[in-house]
């Protein structure tokens, strides 16, 4: 059985923390702007991430307009298309998803869920956000720089990323992109060290590792991975910056550039790909693991049932995290690396499907014999499972080296990664916002707008990305601004592209409703109370909502049980908070 309650659950004396342990803001500026409170930093991170995410969303509309109706929009030249594509991808992966899951949810939820007053290094935590903001501003500035932003694709493969045939390659675009990434990684490292040390050192008494909510496990593991993976991207960015600015040849071989001999000699373009994907593949799970953790808690809370197989879920998270460091070259099966690597990386890649499948089974088995409340967080969690299973299974095509050969670099890949690391984690982001907004703001989000948002987003996103796999199966390559007259592509593919564009614009519109709801409900939402979902974890047991500075009033909570005591037989209510010391008959298991 799971470690549900300590043997001989004697009452643990309350812990008082002196005032001196806490940082207190002394002015409006230090309370709301240069704040060291993780909750404020979380909101700053989330707000910035969503603002820049909105830019990425608009860029995706422009790309879809071009793909659905090529030749209609004169301002979308091939250069512009590649710039939109590159910025869309980079923003979504790094500046939105990574920042939102770790900087946003991590900051808000880790201290509250482990029963800490704040992150352990509040000042560094504040710096983390401000450096992130500068990174975002540098990125945005490239839109206004001479030559515009880089159009090298989010993978930034050299040599083309820094040569004149690519938008921004010999202008400011690529330089600003690399500088922005370097800043992002510096900022992230400051935050990331905080999250890890807080989880390891600042848990309240009774909060053993195996009692932590899976949300914390997901964010914690993802952060450890990010701290190990981002350095690879960091050095790759620095080296490419050297190649571009001072003419070094880390990644640049002897080659010709637009008919002229280039001064470079001896560099290896494939080395960049190894560095990039040594970061890039763990990055997929840096986004996915927090989503895995959060969705587990959403399903458990809203199905009023413990997460099925908690220990297996923890080990699956840790196992996926570890395995994700030995699969990176499955992005490079047709890169020209030694073909025998394919045997190794296909095997590791398909092995990672096993712990991932276990997670899916345990989510759906949590629904089995539950008491499923079809709230907005639950609906988004269900949508996550559908899209994640779909995207995960197409990963078995692309991971299985020889099947990848015809599909790689086609729209099948675009459909796959959007489904699995675009749509699926964003479903969790939405579910999580509907779930925790009441704690952050003290008011519920509007239900009607939320349901409209859910239905259009879920059905629409599926209609965008499911058919897109088949466009790739036909053989349509990715990163083509238009297909032209291409014999093997039937006219019906163009019709399908128009359909996908219309679906994408519709889904985009629904996000405006969601954003409106976020602002509208600030004042007009129903009063939430402290624990509207009747949830067990500590963030719902705070003194007051939104939680005050220091989170828990004078005494830190003491934890007596795991986070999943829902519908315990014999208990008077269908949930027992983690800090409830009573034995089963009065509230907890014996």
């Amino acid at each position, binding site marked *: 059985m799971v470690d549900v309650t300590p043997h001989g659950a004697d009452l643990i004396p309350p812990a008082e923390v002196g005032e001196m342990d806490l940082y207190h803001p002394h002015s409006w500026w230090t309370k709301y702007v240069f704040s060291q409170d993780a909750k404020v930093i979380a909101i700053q991170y989330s707000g910035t991430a969503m603002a820049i995410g909105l830019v990425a969303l608009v860029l995706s509309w422009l790309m879809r307009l071009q793909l659905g109706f090529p030749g209609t929009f004169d301002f979308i030249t091939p250069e512009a298309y590649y710039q939109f594509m590159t910025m869309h991808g980079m923003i979504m992966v790094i500046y939105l998803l990574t920042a939102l899951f770790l900087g946003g949810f991590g900051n808000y939820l880790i201290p509250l869920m482990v029963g800490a007053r704040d992150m352990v290094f509040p000042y560094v935590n504040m710096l983390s956000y401000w450096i992130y903001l500068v990174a975002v501003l540098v990125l945005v500035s490239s839109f206004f720089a001479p030559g515009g932003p880089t159009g090298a694709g989010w993978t930034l493969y050299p040599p083309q990323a820094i040569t004149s045939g690519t938008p921004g390659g010999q202008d400011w675009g690529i330089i600003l992109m690399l500088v922005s990434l370097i800043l992002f990684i510096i900022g992230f490292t400051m935050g990331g060290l905080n999250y890890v040390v807080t989880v390891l050192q600042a848990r309240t008494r009774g909060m053993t590792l195996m009692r932590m909510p899976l949300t914390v496990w997901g964010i914690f593991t993802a952060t450890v991975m990010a701290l190990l993976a981002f350095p690879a991207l960091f050095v790759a960015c620095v080296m490419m910056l050297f190649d571009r600015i001072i003419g070094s040849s880390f990644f640049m*071989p002897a080659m010709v550039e637009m008919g002229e001999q280039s001064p470079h000699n001896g560099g290896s373009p494939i080395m960049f790909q190894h560095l990039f994907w040594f970061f890039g593949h763990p990055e997929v799970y840096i986004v996915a693991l927090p989503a895995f953790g959060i969705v587990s808690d959403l399903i458990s809370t809203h199905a009023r049932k413990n997460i099925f197989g908690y220990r297996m879920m923890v080990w699956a998270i840790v196992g996926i995290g570890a395995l994700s460091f030995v699969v990176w070259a499955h992005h490079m099966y047709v890169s020209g690396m030694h073909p025998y690597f394919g045997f190794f990386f296909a095997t590791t890649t398909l092995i990672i499907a096993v712990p991932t499948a276990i997670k899916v089974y345990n989510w759906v088995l949590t629904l089995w014999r539950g008491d499923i409340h079809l709230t907005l967080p639950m609906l988004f969690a269900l949508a996550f499972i559908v899209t994640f299973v779909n995207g995960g299974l197409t990963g078995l095509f692309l991971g299985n080296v020889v099947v990848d050969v015809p599909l790689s670099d086609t729209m099948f890949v675009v459909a796959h990664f959007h489904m699995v690391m675009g749509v699926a984690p964003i479903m969790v982001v939405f579910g999580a916002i509907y779930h925790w907004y009441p704690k952050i703001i003290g008011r519920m989000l509007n239900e009607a707008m939320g349901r409209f948002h859910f239905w259009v987003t879920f059905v629409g996103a599926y209609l965008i990305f499911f058919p897109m796999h088949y466009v790739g199966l036909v053989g349509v390559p990715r990163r083509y601004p238009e297909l032209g007259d291409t014999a093997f592509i039937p006219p019906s593919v163009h019709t399908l592209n128009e359909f996908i564009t219309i679906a994408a614009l519709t889904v985009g519109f629904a996000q405006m409703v969601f954003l409106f709801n976020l602002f509208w409900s600030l004042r007009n939402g129903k009063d939430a109370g402290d624990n509207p979902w009747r949830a067990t974890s500590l963030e719902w047991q705070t003194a007051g909502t939104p939680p005050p500075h220091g989170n828990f009033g004078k005494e830190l909570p003491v934890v007596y049980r795991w986070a999943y005591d829902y519908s315990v037989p014999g208990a008077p209510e269908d949930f027992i908070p983690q800090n409830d010391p009573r034995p089963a008959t009065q509230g907890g298991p014996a």
Partner: protein
Amino acid sequence: MAIALVLVLVVIGSVLFHVLSPWWWTPIASNWGYIDSTLVVTFWITGAVFSAVVLFMAYCVYRFRHKEGQKAAYEPESRKLESWLTLITAVGVAAMLAPGLYVWKQFVTVPKDATEVEVVAQQWQWSFRLPGADGKLGTSNARLINSDNPLGINPEDPNGQDDVVVEAADLHLPIDKPVKMLLRSIDVLHDFYVPEFRAKMDMVPGMVTYFWLTPTRTGTFEVLCAELCGTGHGFMRGIVMVDTAQDYTTWLQQQSTFAQLTGPAKVGALVDRAKAAATVE
């Protein structure tokens, strides 16, 4: 409730789309039918898993949705069930991986009798080189590239003199003869992609990559670049024609060799240039 219905519709819709939609791969023109078969096996296994999981979810939502007075079961874990599910998944994964690796072994093992054809990519066009009468391609070097020697063929290498150079024109291949495509780029990354051949591989400046195939059907096939190579990426097209043996010979006889294209005077200049490049390096 609507969600249970929509989940069922997602499964039915996806399966019907797969079976009925007109969008499927283009008819194959190479020996890589194995790849298609492995892909079909993967579709069946993953399709079954997707349907089973989503239908199970739909049933759970329908059967266990909240009603007044309902209480969920308390069931932290079941080691037996979890072990079984792990085992079944591992078997399913192995069922896809094993044929995948088996076919990959074939993909990376070039037959001894394969003739070599070199593809040279540059922003944004395709050129080709065939080994000529001696059956050997001469060496090449990016530093030797200039307007008289666009492919950077080494003028001092006797093997290169009879190489057939097809600059920015169509490539022809004889049917039913295995070919090893040697892939070279003189500027940025490219990828030689003919959808009907199924095979593709990146071309990387500074190295020679390869794949092999046996064309199995005559016809005209489009070459597309499948690795982002700058502004002209979407327009970097070429043509491969698969010919009968007779047509192929006719075409080959109309092509020029490296020596013919350069002429003795130019070869001298190129040799000087090659020596200069060698001393620089």
